[in-house]
C-alpha cells in the first residue's frame, strides 16, 4: 500500500469522517482516496471558485479551507500549502456523528502527517 493510502486510511479512524481524498489544487489530479468520496470530486473547482471570487471581492491572503454543508454532511476541503502547487485534502463528515470543530481539528492533525 502506498504512503498516501496509508495516511488517508488513518484519517478515516477519526469518528464521523467517512471519506477522504487528496487532490492537486491546480490540476485536479487525485493522488489518493479512501472511503466515501463521491462528494469530493468537484472540490478542486469549488476551491478555485472560492479563491477567485474572494480575491475579486478584495479578500487578501491565501485560501485555507472551504466547508459546504448539507442537511446530513459537511464536505470539508483544506488547502495544504507546500513547496510547489498546493494540495487539497477533502473529507466527508457525517453531521450526526461528529461536529465541525472536532472534524477540522482532526483533519488538520492528519494533514501534517500526510506528506511526511
Amino acid at each position: 500500500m502506498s504512503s498516501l493510502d496509508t495516511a488517508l486510511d488513518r484519517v478515516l479512524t477519526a469518528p464521523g469522517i467517512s471519506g477522504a481524498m487528496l487532490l492537486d489544487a491546480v490540476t485536479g489530479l487525485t493522488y489518493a482516496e479512501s472511503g466515501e468520496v463521491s462528494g469530493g470530486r468537484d472540490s478542486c473547482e469549488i476551491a478555485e471558485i472560492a479563491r477567485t471570487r474572494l480575491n475579486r471581492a478584495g479578500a487578501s491572503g491565501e485560501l485555507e479551507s472551504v466547508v459546504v454543508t448539507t442537511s446530513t454532511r459537511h464536505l470539508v476541503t483544506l488547502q495544504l500549502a507546500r513547496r510547489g502547487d498546493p494540495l487539497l485534502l477533502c473529507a466527508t463528515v457525517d453531521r450526526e456523528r461528529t461536529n465541525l470543530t472536532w472534524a477540522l481539528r482532526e483533519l488538520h492533525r492528519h494533514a501534517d502527517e500526510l506528506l511526511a
Partner: protein
Amino acid sequence: MTQSGTEEPLADSRNVPALLSALRDRARSCTVLVTGTPGGSIHVRDGLVVAMETPGAPGIEGLLLRSGRISEEAWSAVRASDTTHEHLAAELVARGLVGAGELEVISLGALFDAAFALSLAVPDSWEVADPVPALHRNAGVTPERLLDEVSRRINLLAGEPGSVAALARTRVRSVSAAGLPGTAAGLPARHQEVLAHADGRGTARDIAFALGRGLFAVMMDLRHLLDRGLVQPHLPSAENRPSTAARGAPSAPLAGASAAPRSVPLPRREPGRNSAPELRPHD
C-alpha cells in the same frame, strides 16, 4: 511502427494506449521507447505504468531540483550512493531530503504530466525494450486511468479543436498593463510567477521547466492569464523575423527595381590554408 523485445510480439498495439493495455493484460515489466516529438520512455512494472520520461515535461528530478526542494549537491550524493539507480526514491526518503508522501505526490504528478505531454503529438514509432531503472515512488497506474486523466485535462483546456497542442506551442508574453501597480496584485503567487516568465521567448514547456512545475499546471495558469488579458501570444515582428530572401544576387534586376549591389563572391577555403584568417578592418 516497430516492436522489439525478448517475448512474443504484442498483436494489439496499433497505438501506444492499446500497447499499454496489452502489456497490462500480460502483467509485463518493460520500457516502451516512444520516438517522435517530444518522444519519451514509459516504464511499466507488472503491467502498471510507474513512470514516464519525456523532454516535453519536467520529470521528477527536474521538479525536485528546479523547485528548490533539494540541492544539486544532495541529488548528486544520492545518485553516487546508488549507482544502479534502482533505489533512488528510497534513498531520497531515507536521507530525509523529501517525505515519502511528498515524493509519491511528485512521482504521480510527473507521471500524469508526461502522459499529457506525450498525448499532444502523434508518435513516430514505439518499441518494447527490457525494463531499466527509473526514479519513481508509486504503486503504478492502469492505462485506463492514464487515458481518462489525459482526456480530462484536454477537455479542461480545449476551447476549440486543436487548441491544446497549439497552446502548448505558443510563446506568450505579458501585456504591458500586467506590470502596472495593482493589476497583478490579486493574483495567486503562482500566477504572478508565470506572468514574470512570460517574456515572449518561452512556451508553456519552457516556463514549466524554469519554475519546476508541471506542464499542464502551467498551461492551466496561462489559460487563466490569457482569459484575463494579462498575457498574449507572442508573434515575432516582421523586422525581427529571419530573412527568407534569396541569398545570391539575382541574375537580372527586376524591372523598376534599383540596381543590385555589385556581386562579391563568398570567400573560399583553399587547400593548405587552414590557419586563422587575417584580421579584417573592423576586427
